[in-house]
């Protein structure tokens, strides 16, 4: 089980994971924030999930 990643390729591999984390993280945050913003403007009775 090698944990040594070739120096040359490390950048691309970590870059791919970093991009994934950043993109998914920001999207998830945006989703939650948009939900919170809209949720504030509507009464709970009208939300079908409450």
């Amino acid at each position, binding site marked *: 089980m090698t944990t040594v990643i070739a120096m040359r390729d490390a950048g691309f591999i970590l870059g791919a994971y970093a991009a*994934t984390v950043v993109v*998914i993280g920001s999207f998830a945050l945006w989703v939650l924030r948009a*939900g919170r913003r809209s949720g504030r*403007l*509507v*009464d709970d009775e009208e939300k079908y999930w409450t």
Partner: protein
Amino acid sequence: MTPTTSPQPTARRATGTRATRVLGIVTLVMLGWLLLFGLVLSPADIDQGDAVRIMYVHVPTVWLAYLAFIVTAVCSGLYLFGKRHSLGFDRVAGASAEIGVVFMALTLISGSLWGRITWGVYWQWDARLTTTALLFVTYIGYLAVRGLDGTRERRARRSAVIGLLAVVEIPLVHWSVRLWRSLHQEATILDTDLDVDIDGLMLFTLFSGVIAFTLLFVWLLLHRTRTIALDDLLASRGLDRAIAERRAEVSSSSPSGGGS
């Protein structure tokens, strides 16, 4: 429910429920798991070396992007051909497409980084990549159509047609690109078919990735669909209010108090 004269109104809820919170935590754990195994604990591939680690992220994102677009197409069909034309399907279709576009963007990013290591180039004009890129743009177009002005029903109808047309067109696009590239001898030097001799631990990591991203998809879908439902409600509420205000204007400006 609480009377409107209550002095301390309770804070209104957002799109989360206990179920989504649990789902969210499980998803985070699975994603962390994937990071651990993908980057550290799983072995490098015999042929690809450590580049295979990108696959643990790339493969799930592409599967989920396609799943998202299939969900969009199915819901588009259910909306269009269903007896009641339930807008709920339209909302799921829209939310799923948004998520699909994000996943597809990630697919293209991770894929090109993988290609840079394995082939030395970020991009190749082969059937799979080209179709993926076109699919990406097609669904951006779908989202643009959803952004057009109009009633919810019009938006739903238009995007449902576009969503279904996309499903008809994608196979045609794929076949034409495949035929094109197969006749071009030069491109096949770099083999784009993944010929990975999958070791047990690698397979396990791959599965974890697929599960993690599937949970993520469901979590995102639930939240987005609920938010779209809220926005639709607010939009129609805003419209009702505008109409009511106009009526109030009319009845207050006419001295006899007549009119609507």
